[in-house]
């Protein structure tokens, strides 16, 4: 494989890893925020336990979202300096806004939420998780704006061999953005709903002590998945119009074609199962009581994640050979002078380390699920400052 191919593979692998965690973040954040709000209003201890249990799953997942996101952030400059040279004056703006207006605040408020138990007044603490949700969605908006610009470079004009910004607003009404963004957000809800469903099914199947907790959680998971599937499928089909207009023939290649087929297959399967089987079985809690169904629920958990990866393969491989559609090819955007050894070393480092940590993270999520709501660290007791004094001079 040549240097450009390796650099592309590196981007594809780190980007896919990143999205696996991001898609769950997007789905779980609003669920945790709603649980926390209901707890703050009612004071119901069950809701507190739900907030902490699902909040901890959310937080463990978020860790890998950050770690993989760091690599994404820097990768444009490392491997694709031709992109920042040619289109940075336009493409850089949404990315800069993402870091300042979304990620900076998301991370700061998440820290306040994670460590603020027993410390922040209840209303402010709830406000933190809503701010985390809001900024996570803002982040998705800016990233999709940037990606949509690569699909269909609106709002810019070429001057002296470089793109300059003409109309910033046009980036937000980009036809490749307006249906893709809700499609992705729906995919997030679908992923969140499926994880909540799968984990709840595990506890119900094992007949653990937490029957009421997971019966309620299962209901939340199914309803979230229902909403997610309706949004995802509707906006999925809606995307064919604009894509056909601005990127004709996009799905003709082998990878985009097959991936599109598989995504739609999974999407339809999910929609029929959730709408016609799972949602009706919520009546009188049949779904929670029919234990023979639970292994299927657990086994279905990875489906939205697989569909999401297929979706990105469609969108990104279908754009080839362009980096900025119709204007800058991937080959021309590659950092000049980049050697195979450079890319192989960094690819091995990133893919190896992030791949390993991703496996660890999923194992830790599974562990947290297995241990159940009885052993949640999030919101646990603080260490008293005076317990074992560390005098300043001994440091």
């Amino acid at each position, binding site marked *: 494989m040549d240097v450009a191919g390796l650099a592309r593979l590196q981007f594809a692998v780190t980007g896919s890893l990143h999205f696996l965690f991001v898609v769950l973040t997007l789905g779980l954040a609003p669920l945790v925020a709603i649980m926390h709000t209901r707890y703050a209003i009612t004071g119901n201890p069950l809701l507190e336990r739900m907030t902490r249990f699902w909040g901890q799953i959310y937080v463990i997942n978020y860790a890998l979202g950050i770690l993989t996101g760091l690599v994404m952030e820097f990768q444009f400059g490392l491997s*694709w*300096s031709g992109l920042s040279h040619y289109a940075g004056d336009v493409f*850089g703006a949404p990315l800069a806004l993402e870091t300042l207006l979304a990620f900076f605040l998301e*991370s700061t408020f998440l*820290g306040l939420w*994670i460590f603020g138990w027993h410390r922040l007044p209840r209303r402010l603490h709830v406000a933190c998780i809503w701010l985390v949700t809001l900024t996570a969605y803002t982040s998705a908006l800016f990233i999709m704006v940037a990606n949509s610009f690569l699909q269909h470079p609106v709002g810019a004009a070429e001057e002296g061999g470089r793109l300059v910004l003409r109309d910033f607003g046009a980036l937000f009404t980009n036809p490749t953005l307006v249906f893709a963004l809700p499609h992705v957000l729906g995919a997030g809800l679908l992923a969140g709903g499926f994880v909540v469903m799968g984990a709840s099914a595990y506890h119900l199947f094992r007949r653990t002590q937490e029957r009421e907790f997971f019966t309620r959680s299962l209901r939340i998971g199914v309803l979230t998945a229902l909403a997610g599937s309706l949004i995802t499928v509707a906006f999925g089909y809606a995307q064919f119009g604009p894509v056909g207009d601005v990127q004709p023939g996009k799905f003709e290649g082998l990878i985009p074609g097959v991936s599109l087929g598989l995504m739609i297959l999974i999407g339809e399967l999910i929609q029929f199962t959730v709408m016609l089987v799972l949602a009706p079985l919520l009546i009188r809690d049949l779904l929670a009581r029919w234990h023979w169904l639970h292994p299927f629920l657990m086994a279905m958990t990875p489906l939205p994640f697989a569909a999401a990866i297929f979706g990105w393969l469609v969108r990104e491989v279908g754009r080839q050979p362009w980096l900025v559609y119709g204007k800058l090819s991937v080959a021309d955007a590659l950092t000049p002078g980049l050697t195979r050894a*450079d890319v192989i070393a*960094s690819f091995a480092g990133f893919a190896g380390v992030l791949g390993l940590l991703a496996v660890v993270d999923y194992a830790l999520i599974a562990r947290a699920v297995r241990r159940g709501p009885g052993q949640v660290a999030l919101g646990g007791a*603080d260490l008293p400052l005076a317990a074992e004094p560390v005098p300043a001079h001994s440091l």
Partner: protein
Amino acid sequence: MEIFWLLTFAVLLAGYFALEGFDIGLGVLLPVLGRSPAARDRLVGAMAPFVLANEVWLVALAGVLFGAFPVLEGRALSRLYPLVVALLLAWIVRDAGLWFRRRAGASWRPVWEGALTVGSAGLALAWGAILMAVVRGLPASPFDLPGLAAGAALLALLAWHGRTFAAWRLQDGPRRGGRALLLSACAAAVPAAVVMVIVAGHMLANAAPDQTLTVLSVMVVPVAPILVGAQVWVWRTFSKGALPTFF
């Protein structure tokens, strides 16, 4: 307009070292200052609520570099390729150590604490070498003796800063050491400030066009008080009292 974004960049870079510097330093010193598991819990508990709010300064810095100085972003990052890759890997390893330390079983804890320390040391070394390479005009092979020396010097500086922070945060009773912490924070920011002075002219000459900078300013300036407010809120909430235990 270029000057405004240059100053923003400079503040973010200096602020990153003043704030994240103590997390890095404390991570390096963890095995030295924390001889028992309980002592390490206290040290990590002291810095934990700040880390998320501190490390985002660097993410914001990268964003400003890309948005306001895109040509330099591509040029600098690709010229510093191996160092930036090393920096990112160290950062990832450090963060994994923090996030996973208490999530896995107790027998794994030494592994994640090791990751925390090794990652922190890697961050300091990579940063020292990067700052040195920038000062020397991005040489072709930045992994050399001056680079290593700069890394070692920065490591020592940040370790001192981390120690000052721990002494300040972990004291029980009347508060002292605030001034020492301020001093070590300023000292930690000095190398970055020096580098900024050296590259300022070059950066000004390579800023994005006015159109782009105006859009960025219009979007960011109204939100800036929220960014500052959130940071202040973190300090007001976590700078004294019991230590949270999640990390």
